[in-house]
């Protein structure tokens, strides 16, 4: 049986190490489906990505599946996006994620595992377009 401590240790050993990069092209049809799902009909999004679109382009975070032995479910604690360059239709984006921190907290309803992850998004010109930092919680 995998102990809780060993899951935390294994994830902690990943801190700061880049996961595999993934590449994806920003497609007009995908953008359209994304903004339709939000119900955001701003015509600007026919050619440009809205603020949260990058999460749909590549898996937001690395190594999270390894945490699934802990607790029974996921909660999303929060997301922080920093924007450096606009993301447009046709851009080829490379996403590289890493675990930034891992820690446990014990509250009234039991133990929680916090995984802080970061993902960097770089375009076809090698320019950094955005960085996402997120908190995923196992409970």
């Amino acid at each position, binding site marked *: 049986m995998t102990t809780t401590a060993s899951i935390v240790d294994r994830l902690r050993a990943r801190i700061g190490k880049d996961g595999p990069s993934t590449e994806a092209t920003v497609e007009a049809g995908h953008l359209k489906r*994304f903004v339709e799902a939000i119900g955001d009909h*701003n015509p600007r999004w026919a050619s440009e990505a809205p603020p949260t679109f990058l999460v749909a382009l590549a898996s937001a975070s690395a190594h999270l599946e390894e945490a699934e032995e802990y607790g029974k479910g996921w909660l999303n604690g929060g997301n922080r996006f920093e*924007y450096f360059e606009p993301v447009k239709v046709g851009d080829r984006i490379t996403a590289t994620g890493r675990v930034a921190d891992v820690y446990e907290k014990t509250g009234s309803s039991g133990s929680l595992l916090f995984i802080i992850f970061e993902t960097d998004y770089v375009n076809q010109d090698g320019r950094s377009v955005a960085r996402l930092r997120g908190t995923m919680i196992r409970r």
Partner: protein
Amino acid sequence: MTIKVGDEIPELVKHPTTRQLVQYAGAQGDFYEIHYDQAFAQSVGLPGVILHGLLKAGFLGQLVTDWLGDRGTLKSFEVSYRGIDQPGRPYTCRGRVTKVDGDQVELEVWGEDSTGNRTTVGTATLAMKG
């Protein structure tokens, strides 16, 4: 129009449905079952299916970009998910200006459930055009 501290952003009311959660799951590629499988959601202690945090972030992003228009650029956007929201209940996005420093503007934004509870809170930093 001059932007000043305390200015309120026109509210944006969303009426999320389970269908919309499925649509969003597909568009984002997040197929975690708590967003569309009632029995699964209940098995992990939830009252039923719940909205994706990032869908609520998308709503708040729309609140900000609708208000901002082409007057400036979004530099950062942060949201914390404090509570769950279920489809079939209105979700109201609101915000206000908290800081104006030259061309830099900061907003406080939040999403309220139908009882007025702030289930998502966040901030946005904007660089306004000169």
